Structures are given as C-alpha cells and as structure tokens.
C-alpha cells in the first residue's frame, strides 16, 4: 500500500500550477467553501506512480481528502473466455474501501463508476497495440472526499502510462458543481451533496479532445460554456502536473 512518503526526495510536491488563481469577480461571494478555497481553485494534487509493486503499472493520487490508488495489470490473456478480437480489451473495476465514506461500507454505485471509468479511458488507449489481450485497471478509493470519479480517471491514466501501455494521450478529468449562481471547481463531498448541477469533463489535454462528458442538473447554454471552459483549463493544467510527475520518476530512476 502506498502511503505518503513525504520524507523521500522523490516526492512530488504540488507545483503552483495546481492552484488555479483565475479568480473572476462573482456577484454573490457571500459564502465560503467548506475548505475555504476560491471558487475556481482546485485542491492541491499529489500524484505518484509505482505505488503497487506487483502491478505492471500503478499510481496514487491525493486531491485533498480524496485518496485513490490504481493498479494496472497486463496486457495479459483475458480471464474470461471471450470472443476473439483483433484489438485489445480494457477491463475496469472501481471499488471503495469499507472506510472510504463516513458510513462504514457504504460506497456509491461501483458498477456505474467502473463503466464510466472504462468509457473515459478506452478512447485514449491504442487498443490495436495489444491484440487479443486484455489490460485490467483496478481502482481503489481509499478515502472518498468528493470528485471521486475525476480523481480515479486521472489516476488511472497515470497508472496506464506508468505501465507502458501505448496511449494517444494522458487523460485528465475535472468536475464542477453549480451551486446557486456560482460554479465551483473540484467540489468536495459536501458541495456535491447540495449542488444544483454537476458537470464532469474527461479530456486528452494535448489532443484537445473530450473523451467523456457528464452533466446533470439544470444548465443554461452560457453556463455550460463557462463550466466547460473552466474544466478544460483545469484539465490542461492537471495534465501538465501529471506529465511532470511521470518525468520526475524517470529522472529519479536515472539518478
């Protein structure tokens, strides 16, 4: 299990780039977010690859209280005897630890999360590069602190890159919640529970392509524009952080 190895020099510390200070003046800034962040400010990200040694690739991500560990196995023979296919397969599984949420053993719908993770990642993997075989992605949410799915997706993409699976691009994911008139980026659980709408974008930052987009609640078109722009901006910055994390590991290995 990965733990915060804060003492080792290899630790990646969140760069200032994670703190998006694009403060736009908002009309009613009469409330403060539970963790006293700015509305357009993401939680500091801590990312690290190689958290699980038996896996082909793995990553650990910590965004505030949301802590996620993802391991990637394969490409390997698919366990299930399925139909022959020319392309590789992706198999995703998301699970929660029993202590991930305040109420013991009560996670949200994992089947749903697994299928959403699958959809977010499959467009970014060059499946033709490993015909007939299968890549397994296992995500474990150690602690659920809001925006779980975006963190799982970003972390899984990092783990895939760590495993040396050919990717079209990294996948970064960010969500926004709409609370009253305001948009808040990277919401925590509390904000998610009373939002009027949420929007999650998963994109390939350098290809400028959206692989997954989920919206619920009521949105006007200009608001969707704003929210998407906000998310895309955050995604590209998160992508940079992920890149530097990957590069740091290689540089460290060399030294």
């Amino acid at each position, binding site marked *: 299990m990965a733990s915060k190895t804060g003492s080792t020099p290899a630790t990646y510390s969140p760069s200032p780039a994670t703190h998006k200070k694009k403060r736009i003046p908002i009309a009613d800034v009469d409330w403060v977010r539970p963790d006293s962040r700015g509305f357009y400010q993401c939680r500091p990200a801590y990312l690290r690859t190689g958290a699980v040694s038996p896996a*082909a*690739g793995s990553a650990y991500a910590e965004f505030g209280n949301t802590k996620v560990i993802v391991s990637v*196995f*394969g*490409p*390997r*023979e698919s366990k299930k*005897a*399925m*139909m*022959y296919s*020319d392309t590789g397969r992706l198999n995703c599984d998301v699970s929660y630890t029993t202590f991930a949420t305040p109420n013991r053993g009560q996670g949200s719908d994992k089947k749903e999360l697994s299928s959403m993770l699958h959809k977010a990642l499959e467009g970014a993997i*060059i499946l033709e590069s*490993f*015909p*007939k*075989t299968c890549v397994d992605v296992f995500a474990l949410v150690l602690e659920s602190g809001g925006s779980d799915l975006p963190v799982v997706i970003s972390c899984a993409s990092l783990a895939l*890159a*760590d*495993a*040396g*699976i*050919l*990717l*079209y*691009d*990294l996948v970064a994911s960010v969500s926004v919640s709409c609370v009253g008139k305001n948009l808040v980026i990277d919401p925590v659980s509390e904000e998610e529970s009373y939002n009027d709408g949420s929007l999650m974008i998963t994109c*390939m*930052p*350098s*290809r400028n392509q959206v692989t997954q987009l989920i919206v619920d609640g009521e949105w006007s078109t200009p608001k969707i524009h704003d929210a998407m722009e906000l998310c895309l901006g955050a995604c590209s910055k998160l*992508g940079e952080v*992920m*890149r530097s994390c*990957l*590069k740091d*590991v*290689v*540089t460290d*290995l060399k030294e």
Partner: protein
Amino acid sequence: MSIAMEELATPGQELGKASELKAGKGAYVSTENGTTYASLTGFLSLIRPPSDSVDQRSTVEVTGHKAHGAVPQPGSIVFARVTKVMARTATADVVCVDSKSVREKFTGIIRHQDVRATEIDKVDMHLSFRPGDIVRALVLSLGDARAYYLSTAKNELGVVSAESVSGGTMVPISWTEMQCPLTGQVEPRKVAKVEA
C-alpha cells in the same frame, strides 16, 4: 544511426509534424491534424534515414523506461513450457518472447500439423512432446479466443530442454531422439537443432 536526445516524452506530447517526422515505436501520427505524438513515457531518439532513401524524414522513437511486459506477436520466436499433450494438440505456456521473459501467462497451442515440416500425417504428438519440455516455437497467428497458434516446423524449432523419467536433463542424439545421461534411456522428441 540513432542519436540519443536526452529528452523525456510523455504520452500525448507533441513531437513534430508528420510531414517532417515519421513515428517509430512509442509514437503515433494523428490523422486529424498530421502531428506526431508520443504514446509512451521515455526518452526520445531520432533515427536519421539512410542517405540513399527516398523518404528523407527522420523517424522518432520513444524508448519506454518501463515498457509493458512482452506479448507474443505473429512471427516472434517464443520459448514455451509444454503443459498438456493430447492426440491432436499440445498446449504450452509461453515463458519467453524473443529474448524477453513474459510477465503474464500466455497459452499457446501446437497443432498436430504444425509439429514438423515433413511427413505431417505421421506425427504422433506423444512421440514429439512431453509435459514439462521447453520448446522453441514460432508464433503462427494470434490463434483463437483461447490460445496462440505455435509451430515447431523448422529445424531450429522444437524441444530444447527436456527431463527424462528419472529426472536427468536429456541430451539430444538425433532430431527425433534424446537420451538420458543417468540411465542411458532414449526418449522420442521433436528436437530442435540448437546453434552452438
């Protein structure tokens, strides 16, 4: 011909225009905007084309610091351990692809007709392989949903290492037989001609 560039690339990183740069291993060309991107994390290397080639574009490769485990491809030579011998097929677990060991188990099948190149009809699977033998084989195709199809129908392919009933590692005495150094017993096998 390769010139190592001490530069790191990550998946999705732009490497250049496809009109100037060909994509080698660990890189790909996007058909939408004609840009070459990296698809792996690792060091970039630029391979200059031979001076007489028509295409004067350089090829860019990304060498992964930790490429994924070896996966059998059609045409690759593999080493496999025989697990089951039946009348028409032998099943083997691939342990090495070319010179790399695999990280995960891959199953291969040597069919009756792929054991040797001549007198295919007279092949007796039980006189060619025994469970536990290490064979060198060629990957014919991706096979069916379950296994890769392997072939030993070449002189240099076949059993490279086998244990006799008494537990000694046998030495080849002909291309069809191996002998146990402990008991002198001769056992039939499809033996590979291993280059010294």
